[in-house]
């Protein structure tokens, strides 16, 4: 089972490679990928150096071009595909139909993976992308239970990649407009959820307030950890009750599922976090390398190394983790 690690810059890429990633995924420094944050990501020159560094060490590099081409934006998105091919990336990760078609026609030798943003959840959907565009691998959205993932793996000949660790999108990826409802910008349109320019922090007598696009997402007491205001992790009034109506701040962590994922034939486990620091990427990569290398062959009860699980929790939002939708009770 392949370990896929994120990199938001060259230092992070080297950290992932040096700590045991099989594959690193990156994006260019513009709206053509779903982690379009200020100061993050690669120029084509940096990406070329990253590919060289990784390839010399037997590690593959994927380039995410996984936001949706906007009206008038074709040249920019096409350039990202062309650059990825030119620098020798092993595959591109794409969701947009026009880009899938273009890549299949113009770069038949470039690997083509279906992004999580396409939100394909069934053998029928996967088969469409394979049939029409030759997609060889798909990243599953964080909506299926472990049983559904296992069943899907048995029903498709498209390679599957699943999220193993990192931030948890509560909504189906590529199907969430909450960010643009508040700010005008979303992952689909500009590659950003809750863009930093729309975030406002304010100290008030009631507590520290976090707003997005002027809307109050949460208010924190002085001793309360204050998370970045993403709408799905905010606290709201629902019928007079104050609650995390969608999800509380937490991260996805699936170490205990590794034997089942491997037995089901899942090809790759993906670590989320291109926006994270090189130190984070290095440490998390090292832990996951060990977890994957130590998956027992025999069936039976499996408990991942508690020390490693504890270490992962330290890196998690709200210092808590969840199996998320893999576990039916979460749904």
């Amino acid at each position, binding site marked *: 089972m392949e370990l896929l690690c994120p990199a938001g810059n060259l230092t992070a890429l080297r950290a992932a490679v040096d700590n045991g990633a099989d594959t690193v995924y990156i994006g260019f420094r513009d709206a053509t990928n779903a982690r379009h944050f200020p100061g993050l990501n690669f120029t084509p020159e940096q990406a070329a150096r990253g590919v060289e560094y990784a390839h010399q060490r037997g590690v593959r590099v994927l380039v995410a071009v996984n936001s949706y081409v906007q009206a008038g934006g074709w040249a920019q998105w096409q350039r990202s595909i062309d650059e990825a091919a030119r620098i020798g990336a092993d595959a591109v990760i794409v969701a947009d139909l026009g880009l899938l078609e273009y890549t299949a026609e113009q770069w038949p030798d470039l690997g083509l993976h279906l992004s999580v943003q396409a939100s394909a959840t069934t053998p029928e959907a996967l088969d469409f992308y394979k049939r*029409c565009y030759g997609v060889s691998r798909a990243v599953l959205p964080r909506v299926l239970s472990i049983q559904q993932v296992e069943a899907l793996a048995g029903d498709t000949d498209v390679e599957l990649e699943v999220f193993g660790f990192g931030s948890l999108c509560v909504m189906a990826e590529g199907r969430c407009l909450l960010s643009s409802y508040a700010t005008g910008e979303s992952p689909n349109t500009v590659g950003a959820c809750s863009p930093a320019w729309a975030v406002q922090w304010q100290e008030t007598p009631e507590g520290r307030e976090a707003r997005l696009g002027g809307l*109050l997402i949460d208010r924190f007491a002085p001793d309360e950890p204050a998370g970045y205001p993403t709408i799905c992790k905010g606290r709201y009034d629902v019928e007079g009750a104050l609650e995390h109506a969608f999800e509380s701040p937490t991260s996805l962590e699936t170490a205990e599922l590794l034997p089942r994922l491997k037995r089901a034939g899942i090809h790759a486990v993906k670590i989320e976090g291109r926006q994270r620091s090189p130190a984070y990427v290095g440490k998390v990569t090292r832990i996951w390398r060990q977890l994957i290398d130590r998956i027992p062959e025999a069936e039976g009860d499996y408990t991942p190394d508690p020390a490693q699980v504890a270490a992962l929790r330290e890196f998690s939002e709200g210092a808590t983790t969840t199996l998320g939708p893999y576990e039916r009770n979460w749904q």
Partner: protein
Amino acid sequence: MKIAIGPILYHWPAADIRRFYDGLRGRVDTFYLGETVCGRRRELRPEEWIGLGRELAEEGHEVVLSTLSLVEARSEASVVRRLCDNGELRVEANDFTAVSELQRRGLPFVAGPILNLYSGRALRAMQRAGAVRWVPPMELPGASLRGVLGEFAELGGAGMETEVFAYGRQPLAFSARCFSARHYDRPKDDCGFVCGHHPEGLPVTTRAGEPFLVINGIQTQSWGCVNLLPAIADMQQMGVTAVRLSPRPGAMDEVVAAFRSAIAGEPVTLHEPEPAQQCDGYWWGGAGHTRKAPEAGMAE
């Protein structure tokens, strides 16, 4: 320009569903029928939706069967397949399970609003898969829609109908998790269909008291009700072929009448819901929850 009634997004009892359609018979051009939000909701079974569709079609309406938006279980995929195999009525694909089934059968279909078509090339690719009509994403601004249609034409695309979601609470997100069940502290698999307690969704208000979103099972909608009456003339000019009005529990008569008048070029105002609950920000290129000043058009 035609008037279409989108699929009912809420969990209403079967009798209310039938009453809703009875009230609109003969008054609109197109009905979209079917459960698009939650595979557990079975107030009408697929056969019953198809039966209702045949009835409405015989009366001269165009009827389209809408498929589920987030397909997870095999049983849900087989419902999608059943709708695609109805043999008579057109289908609206709301995920790529349906697109795949329809493309494989060579059937013309409607590409629903959450298939993420944001450019002329994507629309052209969807046309090649068999789409004859599309509903642009909620968040696509009017100016961008004009751009997409221009690109589509430049690429040699023709004969694609465009239907704009012009009225109703906007579907914004879909999740594996049922937020209605979560609010009532019930497991999804034994939800008691608590989403039915809220025929127009469960309001989510910020801690500052601003109404923000509504919860509708696994779907999150805008609290604001989009009203694009002020944009009708623009839409006609750019070749939009239909407006989609999304069902609300009451007042649809008045809403249909207002859109009918606006399409005929008559000045019209709509106070359903009250103006403070209306929004149109996406169309004008802003945040979805905002509302452009009234001087923009004829509504208000």
